[in-house]
């Protein structure tokens, strides 16, 4: 499909009029082909021989799913066809397609709020009976991770990518030069802020134009101060839980960090997507960086020498008198496959068979070799073949031992609340909202 569209576009650049006319015709033809192809592939039509359309977020990890589709097609009568959707607009595109004849049969998602609306509208297959029937399949996943795919006590998602806990990364070289150790307690962390300020190094890299990176601080602080149950209540729809004293305490702690200069004095203009924040850490300009575990592979591809010798990682420290278990983790547990409920009969069965490929040994092996940390219980022995076994093992243990693994708030909450929430968090970091007003603004989210 992609080549059909790209072909004429390339031809269209040729200068002469005849070429252009030919290219136009070709484009029109290609467009109609694409339209018809999409029309017949969708679940709206009941033709039983059409391939199952599988949508996945296009990035470096997609090779694992490509291999899985190939393996599946070798033994199944109903074939699967992988559609790689370019990352940035994945969410928008999937949402506009759902409920139309162009909707995918099986699709990648983040669980939680990213599929809650679909569940409300009865658009997804409830996978609970299947998991009850096939307990071996169910038990192959780490329970905390599988449970994040639940909505209203029913399973709608099967883990299909690596785990992405948020970790505290640090620059070993900068730490060594300052003669200090990574923080174990909150007081250590505050001391480190002062030390690095004196050294002329920004204590924490922070990408202030990309508010979801600031959200990670709020998530961990609230978890450490008030425990995982505060956000559990919020997530359950109790917006008064934003009024919990722990939220106010979290907001005050954030502004205290800002005032101490923990994020330097120009974090508001730093961007994550362009790699600016990660570069600060790699170029010894910042000492620490709170980020999802994917930061390791980002550094590995952009600054391989730094990743190899100087990139360290640790857990987020406990807060004094905090209620939360310091082993708790926040982040994206993983990504999930969900199945469109418009699939019926043997096509639905085939789709469920396809989901089961994620627990196969070959799939887990592919993931590990690709640098991911799988969410399956048997992954540990395979992690030796990970490109960075130390890192993979600590990320795996971190997630496995966590009493609670909170899904990133912007994915857990419905989209209607997530986007104003991120704006409020950015205002809190920029001191455009004081802690009390921040709490009021969060309580008003609906």
């Amino acid at each position: 499909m992609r080549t059909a569209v790209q072909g004429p576009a390339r031809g269209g650049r040729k200068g002469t009029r005849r070429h252009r006319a030919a290219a136009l015709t070709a484009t029109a033809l290609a467009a109609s082909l694409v339209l018809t192809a999409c029309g017949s592939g969708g679940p709206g039509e009941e033709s039983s021989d059409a391939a199952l359309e599988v949508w996945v977020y296009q990035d470096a990890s997609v090779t694992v799913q490509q291999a899985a589709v190939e393996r599946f097609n070798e033994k199944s009568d109903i074939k699967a066809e992988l559609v790689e959707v370019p990352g940035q607009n994945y969410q928008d595109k999937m949402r506009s397609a759902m409920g139309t004849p162009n909707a995918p049969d099986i699709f990648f998602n983040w669980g939680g709020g990213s599929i809650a609306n679909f569940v409300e509208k009865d658009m997804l297959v409830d996978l609970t009976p299947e998991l009850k029937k096939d307990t071996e399949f169910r038990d192959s996943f780490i329970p905390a991770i599988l449970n994040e795919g639940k909505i209203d006590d029913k399973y709608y998602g099967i883990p299909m990518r690596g785990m992405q806990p948020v970790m505290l990364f640090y620059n070993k070289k900068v730490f060594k030069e300052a003669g200090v150790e990574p923080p174990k307690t909150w007081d250590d962390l505050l001391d480190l802020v002062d030390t690095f300020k004196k050294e002329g190094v920004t204590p924490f890299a922070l990408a202030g134009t990309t508010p979801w990176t600031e959200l990670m601080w709020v998530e961990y602080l609230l978890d450490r101060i008030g425990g995982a149950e505060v956000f559990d209540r919020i997530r359950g729809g109790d917006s008064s839980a934003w009024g919990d004293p722990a939220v106010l305490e979290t907001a005050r702690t954030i502004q205290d960090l800002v005032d101490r200069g923990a994020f330097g004095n120009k974090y508001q203009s730093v961007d994550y997507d362009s790699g600016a924040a990660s570069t600060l850490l790699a170029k010894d300009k910042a000492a620490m960086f709170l980020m999802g575990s994917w930061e390791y592979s980002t550094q590995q591809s952009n600054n391989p020498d730094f990743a190899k010798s100087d990139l360290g990682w640790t857990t987020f420290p406990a807060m004094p008198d905090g209620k939360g278990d310091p082993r708790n983790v926040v982040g994206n547990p993983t990504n999930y496959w969900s199945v469109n409920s418009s699939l019926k009969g043997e096509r639905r069965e085939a789709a469920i068979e396809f989901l089961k490929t994620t627990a196969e040994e070959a799939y887990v092996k592919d993931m590990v070799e690709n640098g991911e940390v799988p969410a399956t219980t048997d992954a540990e022995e395979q992690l030796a073949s990970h490109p960075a076994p130390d890192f993979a093992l600590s990320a795996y243990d971190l997630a496995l031992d966590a009493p609670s693994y909170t899904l990133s708030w912007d994915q857990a909450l419905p989209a209607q609340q997530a986007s104003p929430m991120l704006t409020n968090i950015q205002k809190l970091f920029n001191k455009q909202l004081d802690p009390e007003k921040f709490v009021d603004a969060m309580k008003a989210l609906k």
Partner: protein
Amino acid sequence: MKHVATTSRVGRPGIAWAVPGVLFFALFAVGPMLLVVYLSFTTWDGLGSFPSVSGTDNWERLFDDPTMRQAVKLSIILTAASWLIQTPISLLLGVWSAGRQKNRAVLSAIFFLPLLASSVALALLWKSLLDPNFGLIAEIGPWIGIENGNVFADGTSAMAAVAFVASWQFIPFHTLLYQGGARQIPKSFYEAASLDGAGTVRQFFTITLPQLRNTVITSSVLMVVGALTFFDTVLILTEGGPGTDTTIVPYLMYETGFQAYDMGYASAIATTLVIVATAISLLMVRISGFTAMRSTREGM
């Protein structure tokens, strides 16, 4: 009837010739616009099932939404700033480049380049130039009074950055308009003025500027409507931040519709935008007397 018959005999365009254009406009402009008006009276999260009618809820919310009020204010500021920056620069550049000298042709071609790049590419480029640690701004920021290059830290400087990037991108287009306009002015005017002893400055204000009246109006209408519907640069450069300090109306509409999936409310914002932009451009045309279609060459 008789009139139509005459025109068709001499092969001039009749009403039938307008049919494809009208159909196209109806299908891709009027139709969607009417749908948006309808959607503004509903609640819809963009998913499958039909929107449920919610009466005037969205409109009531629109009038006491502080973010919307701020967005309107910011849009007006951005529009005014764009006009004030772009008009004088492109007018002078356009008049200057209207000359037939060879170096001017070469330079005009270079000035024109930003218009050829996509706005997304330009916004990404400027974003990396404005990075406070690794961008150009880290070097030259202190010279131009932006201490430590922290441009996106407060609303004013972030908005200034948006207006600057927008101007940088669109000045070439308006320059082109003015260049075309200036080349239409008959040489004899200037010859007569020189004989009467008028200098370059005097010639500019008494001949060039009045002669360019219609071009000024065209360019201004395009600028104002363009600034009111300006979006992509904000999306990439600031994402509406810091906080909501660069959340102009089109960006608010996008955020409401495609991030919060509140299509009904987003449609109310969109409808407001359509009404305001149409009203302003009609008003500009009316006040400036552009509709009278008076020639700038009257009395020649």
